[in-house]
Structure formats: structure tokens, C-alpha cells
């Protein structure tokens, strides 16, 4: 399977990437790890005229501590996240999440920026960025801005990114009491249901992916939570339009969501 013809440009700065996006508009696509984009191009679901490879931008693959926050460059691979000492000690929930993405080869190429920008409804990171209240740092022709995770995901493969914007980094608060629970699609290993839970004092933040066409904060669970985990988990899909596909119909998916919220709350 061979994609339609395209031009390829490897850039060395964010500005260069943004200028190309501005110049080519819809016909340009950012290329990071390529592990969502290249398969889609091979199937001709996507046929950009020019690929703008951002993998060589200096510093966009760093993981640093900034006071009480951890800043992760958009080009960090899932493997870099799994293996980062800083993330394992200060943001363990993200390492847990990255560890269950795809397989080792996919983790060696795919990036956090690419996964968030792609916004696959079955991707893992969205649950965790939501539960952690992470911030997505982006840059476009009008400069830099920061988007709260809760404002970022807008629908299936749809985000708050403008056409000329790229994600440069993701900023997380340090989280010590979090965990991620996932029910795998048996072949691709994407999430049929993925639940991230962050506990703070007596309250809890719950992010859910795979269940609806947009990942969401399960506010009904958060409000019902009082340490009585079983009951709060029953609210996992309150007010949510649950997806139905050949992996799981809506009824089964709703059931799984409740079971995995319960597991994550009790873990």
C-alpha cells in the first residue's frame, strides 16, 4: 500500500512549521511519529500535498521539571515517557498510560503531541490529560497560547487546534495519587474503555476515553464520590452518548465503563 504523492519538508523550528501550515493551509499536514498519519495515508483516507516533519525541532523532545509542573515536549515518544525517571517519580499515571499504548514498536515512534492532535476517540492519553487537568501549549501564526485539557477535545478527530497551530508541549501538575485502567481492543490494543483517576484529599478527578466520540471528565462520578467507590462508579456514563461499534455495543461499553471506573477508584 503506497500513499498518494506528496512533498516532504523537515523543519528545524516551530516558526518554519507554522509558516508552512500558513502557506499551504489544508494541503499541509504535520508529521511527527507518523503512526496515525502514515497508515491513514496508505489507506488514502488522508492525502496531504506536503508533510511538514517536526521531529527534528530542537528541544521539542525534552521532559523537564518547572516548579510543581512537568513539561513534556510534543515530540516525546511513548517509550521516552515510559522510561523517564522524572515521570515515573512525579507523574506515574502518565507512565502507566503510555505503557499500555499499542506495542513496543508503536511506542518507539508515536508521540504524545501526535496522539493529542489526532484525537482518536480510543486513544489513551486523553483520559489522563483530562484527569490531571493538564494544559496543552500550542503555537501558531498569532503566537503562543495554552489550552486547558477540558477545552481541547471537541469531537471525533477534532480538537481546539487552529489550522496553523502546532502543539509544542504538554504541561502537567505533579500527580502522585493517580492510576489508569484500560480494557484493550484485542487486535490493535487501542482502548475500548480507558479510565484515569487522580485522587486529591477527599475528592477525585476522573477522565474517560473510548466510551464516547469525545473523551470526557466524568463529573457525575466526581460529584457522587465520597469514598464509597462502588456507588460513584455507577454514574460513569451519565449524560454521555455512548459509542457502539464491532468491539462493543453501547450497552456493553457502558457496563465496561462502570467496571473500569470502579477499578480505577479502588486501585
Amino acid at each position: 500500500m503506497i500513499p498518494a504523492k506528496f512533498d516532504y519538508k523537515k523543519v528545524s523550528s516551530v516558526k518554519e512549521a507554522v509558516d508552512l501550515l500558513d502557506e499551504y493551509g489544508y494541503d499541509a499536514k504535520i508529521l511527527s511519529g507518523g503512526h496515525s498519519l502514515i497508515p491513514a495515508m496508505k489507506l488514502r483516507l488522508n492525502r496531504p500535498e506536503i508533510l511538514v516533519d517536526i521531529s527534528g525541532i530542537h528541544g521539542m523532545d525534552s521532559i523537564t521539571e518547572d516548579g510543581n509542573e512537568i513539561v513534556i515536549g510534543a515530540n516525546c515518544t511513548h517509550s521516552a515517557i515510559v522510561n523517564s525517571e522524572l515521570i515515573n517519580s512525579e507523574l506515574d499515571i502518565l507512565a502507566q498510560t503510555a505503557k499500555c499504548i499499542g506495542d513496543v514498536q508503536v511506542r518507539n515512534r508515536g508521540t504524545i503531541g501526535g496522539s493529542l492532535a489526532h484525537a482518536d476517540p480510543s486513544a489513551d492519553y486523553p483520559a489522563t490529560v483530562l484527569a490531571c487537568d493538564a494544559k496543552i501549549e500550542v503555537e501558531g501564526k498569532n503566537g503562543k497560547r495554552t489550552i486547558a485539557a477540558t477545552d481541547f477535545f471537541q469531537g471525533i478527530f477534532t480538537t481546539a487546534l487552529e489550522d496553523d497551530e502546532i502543539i509544542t508541549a504538554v504541561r502537567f501538575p505533579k500527580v502522585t495519587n493517580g492510576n489508569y485502567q484500560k480494557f484493550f481492543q484485542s487486535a490493535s490494543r487501542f482502548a475500548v474503555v480507558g479510565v484515569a483517576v487522580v485522587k486529591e484529599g477527599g475528592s477525585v478527578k476522573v477522565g474517560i476515553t473510548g466510551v464516547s466520540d469525545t473523551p470526557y471528565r466524568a463529573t457525575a462520578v466526581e460529584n457522587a464520590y465520597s469514598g464509597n467507590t462502588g456507588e460513584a462508579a455507577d454514574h460513569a456514563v451519565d449524560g454521555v452518548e455512548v459509542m457502539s461499534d464491532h468491539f462493543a455495543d453501547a450497552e456493553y461499553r457502558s457496563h465496561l465503563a462502570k467496571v473500569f471506573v470502579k477499578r480505577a477508584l479502588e486501585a
Partner: protein
Amino acid sequence: MNISITVNGKVYSHDVEPRMSLAQYLREVLDLTGTHIGCDTTGCGACTITLDGNAVKSCTLLAVQADGCEVTTIEGMANGHAMHPIQEAFKENHGLQCGFCTPGMVMTAADILKNNPNPTEEEIRHGLEGNFCRCTGYHNIVKSIRHAAEKING
């Protein structure tokens, strides 16, 4: 576009179309047909090679993305006529039947053992999640990798 890639220690330079996959480049331009293409859609792992030391699926990497990188394919594992310990272990443990998946299995095994020289059976199975085998039932592949670890660790 002109690219220059080090494959199995040798530097190659070619003018390629951006849409050519690395797997295609290895097989069709360099004639290194040990890297197999099974699904061509990132599912089966038959095309696994190492890129700067890490296992990746070469069907889902453009040759232009590997410009300036070091690639090792199954052809680069043996030392002259002496098989690599992972290859020897596959031979001794009946780790292959038809052999179609084997180059990808060996390259993934190299990544597993690089990061974890003494993996448990469970860790090996977790490491092989991206590699399909239609013949062996995996049992002897896992055994081969365990045995390879013992050989390498002496």
C-alpha cells in the same frame, strides 16, 4: 529527495520519492529482502528493524524519515557466518516454522533484551505484542528469547 542511511554499518545514499516506505527501500532498492512485509499496515511486526537501536515497524516509516539514521536489519545480525545468539537460540529451540515472522521476531527480541537483559516469560510476551506468528503458537519463540538471554549473559 536525497537521503543517506547507514544500514548494517554501511552508508547508502539514494534519491527516493518521499512516499517510499523504509521497508520498500530496504527490499527494493538495497535488495535486503530479509525484512518481510506482511500486513503493510503496522499490525503484524514482520517488517521490524532497529532504528538507532530501537525496534520499529519499517512499513510505517518513510525512508526519508530515516535519513541520517542507523538501521539494523536481520541481515546485520550475524557476524560473518557466525549467527547472532538470538538467531542461534531460535534455531535450537524450534522458534520458527515457516519463518515469515522470524526476522521481525528476532529484531524485536534484540530490543527486548537491550532494555531488559534478563526478561521473565511475561515480560517477553508483553514485548512481543506487536509481532504476529501464524505457525508456532509463540511458545517456542518465547523459549528462544529466554534461551538467547542466557547465552548473551553467559
